[in-house]
């Protein structure tokens, strides 16, 4: 292991200290650095909270800011935060209009967010939930509820954040977030493993000449381990699965996120996007919004994921809306 560390046990808390020193836009509540919230919540707005394990920056806390999320409960590396931390975040960000939880489909996160919602209910705070399940490699069609949540949650955050900023009700924000969730698909490919600081060695291994399509962002098994192929072939294999679920026809419009998993240069991400764009073009579809970079990582894992959101008249302006957060800023398209 070769990492910038002091004591591995302080990995998350020291990271958070850096975050607070760098970004005055966010702060924390209940004297607990792991309860991250916007410094200035907007009165009357539906609050949006997320949460999950550390090790995925910019996910999850990086999207807390103007017109996106209002709070994030931060867990240890690849571990769920506690229900109590989520509850504290909920209490702070509730402005009387209720709170929406948006998080990924993992057992530990679900049990704790459910518990937090139950505690919030006792306080008289209405909580709704939308659980990201965009990873098409993690379960088959018909079993979507078993799919993991990965980078595509970015689009759910963006849609919900814009809807809440527009002053919509909790029911409407929830409906739009769920619509984004239902229309986004992600597939990833891993080229190498990652190292959890407190463990100190690679979680698994991927051979020098191998890749694994569909591997999860904690190293969960994917669809299959194969020989590394040329970039265009890798994209063709990945996108064939996406198009099978999100058909792209003449005149259809999409938003695309090409996400690096932590150890892959941006240059390579653009080589991947080149091919993604060609495939949409060949189908007569338009890629209206594109983001390329690191949005949801797995420590230093080399690899990438491609997330595709099918747009419609309702989702389009929400995805176009301006946001400003510590890890992501976007001017209105």
């Amino acid at each position: 292991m070769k990492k910038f560390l002091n004591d591995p046990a302080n990995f998350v808390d020291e990271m958070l200290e850096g975050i607070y020193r760098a970004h005055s836009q966010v702060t924390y509540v209940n004297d607990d650095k792991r309860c991250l919230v916007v410094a200035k919540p907007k009165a009357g707005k539906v609050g949006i909270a997320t949460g999950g394990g550390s090790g995925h920056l910019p996910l999850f806390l990086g999207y807390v800011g103007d017109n996106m999320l209002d709070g994030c409960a931060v867990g240890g590396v690849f571990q769920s935060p506690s229900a109590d931390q989520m509850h504290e975040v909920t209490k702070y960000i509730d402005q009387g209009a209720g709170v929406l939880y948006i998080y990924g489909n993992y057992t530990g996160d679900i049990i704790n967010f459910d518990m937090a919602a139950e505690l919030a209910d006792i306080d008289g705070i209405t909580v709704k939930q939308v659980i990201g399940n965009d990873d098409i490699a993690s379960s088959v069609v018909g079993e979507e509820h078993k799919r993991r949540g990965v980078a595509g949650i970015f689009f759910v955050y963006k849609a919900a954040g814009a809807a809440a900023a527009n002053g919509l009700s909790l029911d409407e924000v929830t409906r739009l977030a769920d619509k984004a969730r239902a229309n986004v698909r992600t597939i990833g490919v891993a080229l190498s493993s990652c190292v959890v600081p407190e463990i100190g060695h690679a979680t698994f291994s991927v051979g020098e000449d191998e890749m694994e399509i569909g591997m999860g962002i904690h190293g969960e098994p994917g669809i299959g381990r194969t020989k590394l192929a040329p970039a265009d072939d890798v994209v063709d294999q990945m996108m064939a699965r996406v198009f099978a679920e999100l058909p792209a026809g003449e005149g259809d419009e999409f938003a695309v996120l090409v996400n690096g998993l932590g150890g892959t240069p941006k240059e390579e991400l653009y080589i991947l996007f080149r091919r993604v764009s060609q495939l949409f073009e060949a189908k007569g579809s338009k890629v209206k919004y594109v983001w390329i970079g690191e949005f949801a990582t797995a420590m230093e894992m080399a690899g990438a994921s491609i997330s595709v959101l099918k747009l419609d008249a309702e989702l389009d302006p929400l995805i176009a809306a301006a946001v400003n957060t510590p890890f992501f800023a976007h001017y209105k398209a």
Partner: protein
Amino acid sequence: MDAIRADDLIGLFQSWRDMFAAQREFLIALDGKVGDSDLGITMSKSFAAAYDTVAAEGAAAGLTKLLRSAGAIMAKTAPSTMGTLTATGFLRGAKALEGKDVIGTAEMAAFWRAYATGIAERGKAKLGDKTILDVLDPVAGVLEAQAASGAALAPAMKAAAVAADAALEATKTMVAQHGKAAAFQEKTVGLQDAGATVGVLLVTTMSEFVAG
């Protein structure tokens, strides 16, 4: 005791606290066979915190408020799976008893039914998965039958405790489907489930409390 009132409930939490303190090492060892050994710590910590909370609030807070406060403090104190499930049970039980001042046999049945259902939902467990649900579901069933036949609280709880023991014995034949124990699969056959053991301890202590 023919019914549990708010001041009795504080005494009951004291009994639960003392019992889990006494069973701490036993539960640590039992959980250590296929789990991560934290169960004894989780339960003794959560019930100590719950007793402190209900004692501080006092009987004047009312029955359901005390149950809710106990559940909420448990969720804070022990954010492990079993701590969260136990907390959920108390919160759901409190909800089921909304508006009641006393727990007689019918209310006891409603409490444990809500407790079991809450745990099943939160833990996504079904009967036969070798969990605490495999004890609490028959307990609720026995109490519902006792309530239907007009039984008094003490004999009804006695019957529930007997059913809990038998149900725990039956978990030995099951294969664990949840938590860290699930990784051991067939090796869990023959072992009594640690979570289900907690269920028996809760019900037995409650039965002894209403009998005494």
